[in-house]
Structure formats: C-alpha cells, structure tokens
C-alpha cells in the first residue's frame, strides 16, 4: 500500500527540486501532446522559449502579460487566505477598466503625475464597489460569496456591453458599433519604460503590490486578522475582531487589486475600452494565486510563468505551427504536475508492507 506520510519540515531544497521536476514533467507531457499532432517538438519548444524569454522584446511581452495575472492572483491570495471564496476577480477586472475609462474622461487634461494615479485609483474604486456589494450581500443578507461574485461577474460583463453598445461609451462615427470605445488620447497611454514600445510603466505595479501584500500579510495587524479569519473566525470573533468589517475590508482590498489589473490593461495595453482583452484574466488569476501557494511572492513567480507561456504562445503558433489552444492545455497539465509536486514537498511517499 502506498501512503503519504507528512514530512516534519518541508525541505526547501526538496521543495525547489520537486517544482523543477513538475515543470519538466509538465513539459514532457505537453511534448507528447504536441507530437501526437505530428508537429516538431523541439521547434515548438524553441518557439515557446524564444517567445517568452528569447529577446528583450519577448521578455517585455512576458512582463506585460504577467502583470494582470499577478494582480488578480494577489486578489485571490488576499481573499482565499481569509477563506473568502471570491470568484469575482473576473468582473472586478472589467470594473477596473470601466472605472479607469470613466476616470480618463473626468481627469482628462491633468498632468501625468496626477492623471495616472487618479485614473488607476478610480479604476480600483470601481472594483472596490463590486467587492463592497459582495461583502454586504454576505454580511447583511447571508448570500454566499461564490454565488454573489459569479452573478456580479455576469452583470458587469453585460453592463460593459451596454456601455459600449447602445450606451454612452461606444465608438461613434466612421466605425460605429463595434463594442469598443474610441481610442484614448496619447497622453492617456501609460508611459513606456526603456524606450520599449510595449513595456509600460504599469508592469512595475504588480511587484510593488506583491511586496505590499507580503508585508501586510506577514507583518501588519490586518494580515494577522486575514490569516486568523481563514484559520478560525470564531476565535477572532470572541477576541473582539469585527468579522463583518474585516470581511468587507478584505473583499474590497482584493477587488481593488483585481480592478487595478483591468485599469492597467486599459491604459497600458489596449488603450481603448473593450471586453475581449479582459476576458479570462480574473479566472486565470485564481489559478495563478493558488499555484503561488496563496503567498504573494509565490504568486509573482506563478504569474511570470503563466505570462511567459502566454507570451510564447503566439510564437509557438506562428513558428511551431501548433494550435494556440495548446497553451491552455499546457497550462492545465503543468498545473497538475505542480500540484503533485506540492504534495511531494509536503509528504513522503512510503510503501507500506504489512508488518508480520
């Protein structure tokens, strides 16, 4: 009989090597998949590597792609650590972009040093509004947060659709009716770093956010309460923590992070409001946060890994000639090996022979 025996201490070296093994195993399994369609495996992986880390431009793309994933991942970390099962990151990303777009209208003309913080803050505020609604539904009306956040996701998507199609924000004129807003003015583009055309200043924010999250989680009373809430809310309640208030704070903070992702996408990448580049960022963030072991630093690495895969996907498609849908499949496969590796790091596999 095979049993898993808990290790005394998770061994750092063993943890690291098991995760490397997971990546290798994940890639190996993907190779089988690639080979099954007759494509050339080394070519495909070459393209993947080239597209994710092969050049400064590829690295920039990886960073840009990782940015929203890390932020939605952090949103997940904060909520899930408190055992608040918010699935609302998806809608909050949309809300962030919408709030940011509204901000761009309201704050147009301000100097950049005021404009960008202003519009990002408005985006985050819009997300926080959503988080607040879910928190009120949970605290006041005992509506399970999975239900409320899933429902709010749908509502936000339809709201954006209306704003862009039939509502006030749709692009009018020569190219009317295409589910997108007009292009933002150049002054509303997040400034580029290192003269790159792609690497916008927003890529710095996830790292800043992760550092803040790490500090908050491990060193502040709020982080203490978040962790405590996840472990044992009853004890916290007995010891004077206002659970409803803490839940609201957590859901709003989490929503703000997810919304920041949406706002950065708007000002850094798409430069106009439209839905298709926002779809899936929230759901992917949940997975990123969980692969990151619900730790802010782990989430950064997981986000970079997923960002690299996403960035390499196009190269794989164009140079390696495999369907782009290989990438989500590879992400899924790698995720599973990661999970197995996580188990390996925490447990020892022991073959138990019946003792006579």
């Amino acid at each position, binding site marked *: 009989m095979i049993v898993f025996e808990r290790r005394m201490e998770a061994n750092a070296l063993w943890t690291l090597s098991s995760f490397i093994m997971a990546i290798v195993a994940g890639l190996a399994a993907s190779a089988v998949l690639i080979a099954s369609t007759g494509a050339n495996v080394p070519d495909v992986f070459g393209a993947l590597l080239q597209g994710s880390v092969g050049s400064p431009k590829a690295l920039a793309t990886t960073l840009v792609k990782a940015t929203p994933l890390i932020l939605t991942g952090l949103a997940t970390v904060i909520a899930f650590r408190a055992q608040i099962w918010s699935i609302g990151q998806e809608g909050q990303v949309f809300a962030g972009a919408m709030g940011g777009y509204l901000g761009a209208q309201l704050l147009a003309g301000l100097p950049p040093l005021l404009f960008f913080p202003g519009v990002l803050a408005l985006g985050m505020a819009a997300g926080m509004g959503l988080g607040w609604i879910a928190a009120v*539904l949970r605290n006041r009306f005992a509506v399970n947060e*999975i239900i409320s956040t899933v429902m709010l996701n749908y509502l936000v998507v339809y709201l954006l659709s209306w704003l862009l199609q*039939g509502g006030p924000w749709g692009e009018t004129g020569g190219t009317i009716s295409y589910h997108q807003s007009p292009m933002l003015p150049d002054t509303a583009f997040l400034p580029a770093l290192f003269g790159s055309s792609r690497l916008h200043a927003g890529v710095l924010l996830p790292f800043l956010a992760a550092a803040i999250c790490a500090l908050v989680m491990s060193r502040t009373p709020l982080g203490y309460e978040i962790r405590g809430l996840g472990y044992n809310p009853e004890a916290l309640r007995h010891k004077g923590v206002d659970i409803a208030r803490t839940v609201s704070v957590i859901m709003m903070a989490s929503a703000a992070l997810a919304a920041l992702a949406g706002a950065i996408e708007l000002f850094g990448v798409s430069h106009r409001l439209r839905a298709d580049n926002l779809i899936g960022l929230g759901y*992917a963030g949940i997975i990123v946060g969980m692969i990151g072991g619900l730790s802010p630093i782990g989430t950064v690495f997981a986000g970079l890994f997923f960002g690299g895969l996403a960035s390499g996907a196009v190269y794989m498609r164009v140079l390696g000639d495999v369907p782009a849908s290989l990438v989500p499949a590879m992400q*899924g496969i790698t995720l599973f090996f990661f999970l197995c590796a996580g188990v390996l790091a925490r447990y020892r596999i022991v073959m138990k022979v019946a003792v006579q």
Partner: protein
Amino acid sequence: MSQLFQEAIIISILASTIRIMTPLLFSAMGELITQRAGIWNMGVEGTMLTGAFAAYLVATLTGSLWLAVLAAIVAGALMGLVIAFMTATLRVDHFIAGLGLNLLAGGLTLYWFQSYIQGRAQPIFSGFQDVDIPLLSDIPVIGPVLFSQRALTYVALLVVPVVWFLLYRSRYGLELRCLGENPKALDVKGLSVSARQYLAVMLGSAMTGLGGGFLMLGFSDRFLADFTAGRGWIVIVALIAGNWRPRGVLIAVTAFAFLESLATHLQVVGAQVPHQLLLALPYLASIGLLMGLRFRSGQPARLGIPYARE
C-alpha cells in the same frame, strides 16, 4: 408586451424553462452527489465541456446518439477520476483541483477539436428530437410543456427523485452523506474513505458530464470553443442556493431557467429596454431572491476539507 400573456407564449416560456433547466439538472444533481461526499468540485464547467466534446466526437464519428450519451458519461467519470485522485489521494486543495480541471478541459477540448477538424468543414450531427408522449402531450398547456420534450429531459426530471432516494433511503447514500459530514465516522468503522470518495466523485462527475453531453446532443449540432458558456458556474450557484438538497437544487435550477426563459421572451416580444438588461435579468433576480432567503445552512460540515487520518 401584452403578448407575453398569450397562451402560446406562456407555453413557450414554460417549455423553454424545461429545456434550459434539464441539462443543468443533470450536472447539478451530479455535483450534489460529489459535494455531499465532501468534495468541493469547482471543475463543473470543465467536466460539462468535456462531456459535450466527447458527445460531439462520438456523435459525428459513429452517428449514434446513444453511444454519444455513453461517451459523455464516460468522459465525465474520467474527469471525476482526476478530481478524486487530486483530492482524495493527493489531498490537494479542492478548489484548485477543480479550477485546474477547467483550465485543462478548456485547452484540451479545443486542441483536440482543432486536431479533429483539421481545416476541413466541421462535421455536424443531427441531435435528439422531441418525443411526444401519447395522450399526455395532447393535454392543453401542460402537454406541450411537459410531455413534448427530448427523451433525456424525462430522464433528467426522474434523476431528482432517484438522487433523493439514493441519498436518503439507500445504504450507500447514508455512507455518502457521512463522507461529507464526518468521514472519520466511516473510517473508525473500518471502511475506506477514499474508495467511497472516488466512487461518489466519479458517479457525480459522470452525471455532470452527461449534462454537458445533453446540452450538445439535445440542443446543438456542433462543437465550438467554450461550448458550455459558463453553465458550470450556474450549476455551482444552484447547488449553494438549493442548500445542498435535491429539492432545493431542483427549485434553484428551475427558478434560474424560468428567469432566463422569461428574459428571452421579453427580448423577443420587443421590450423597449436594452437587451443587455434583459440578459442580465436572471442574474439580478437570482441575487434578489437569495437576499430574501435565509435558512439553516445545509452545507456538508466537512465539504472541501481533505480527509487525513493522522
């Protein structure tokens, strides 16, 4: 708007309610079994999608719809096997196992789909037709609503009492509920917790997969990316809203389907509001309904908590 109250439209609203709810019902009953056994399977969407894809593949390859139904069931059970391995054996967090499954299913089905059609015209199949039950289908209003539906619809409606019986009146059901409430109570009687969890998750996922397969075979003729379009999430919502009881889940699924059907007909009769608002109606109304409800939570006590003896 006044059109809405004509008999033909009322019948259409009700019949549409039944059509929308039945695939969801299979999946929701499947997820109910899974969750009552303590496994928080978030992979409903992926399981339904895989079930739908398997059904499409087999339907177009063999032309047999019932083989396709079987394929959806088997595909669902296989997804259940993956979930069971992750949660019962590896004791991975249930949420991440399920979400990972969604990712994997979304990618793999699309990848295989593209490999399957390979640039040629997409094969299509001709799905299930309505079956008129003799005599009953002639009853006014009720007849066309209830007795002129797909064969699997009747099965779906039967599944509710069957699941109820399984959970509350069978020996296996008592053990299954025990898994969700306190698996240790089985363990101390010398029964294998993980074997039972495997069985429950595979059975539940098979039904979930069947829900996806029915969506394909009953209401479509082709597969497309993201075919299930978020219905898996609605299933999870219905389970929570239905308070983990067969009847509650039935009510939740019905209410949701009715709202969706109503919104559909409102748009069609030309309600003068943005169509997005009508599309959002079921979601808005669901939240509203749930705000008014309060009950003692029926959530299994050990739901989502991996069981380990030591």
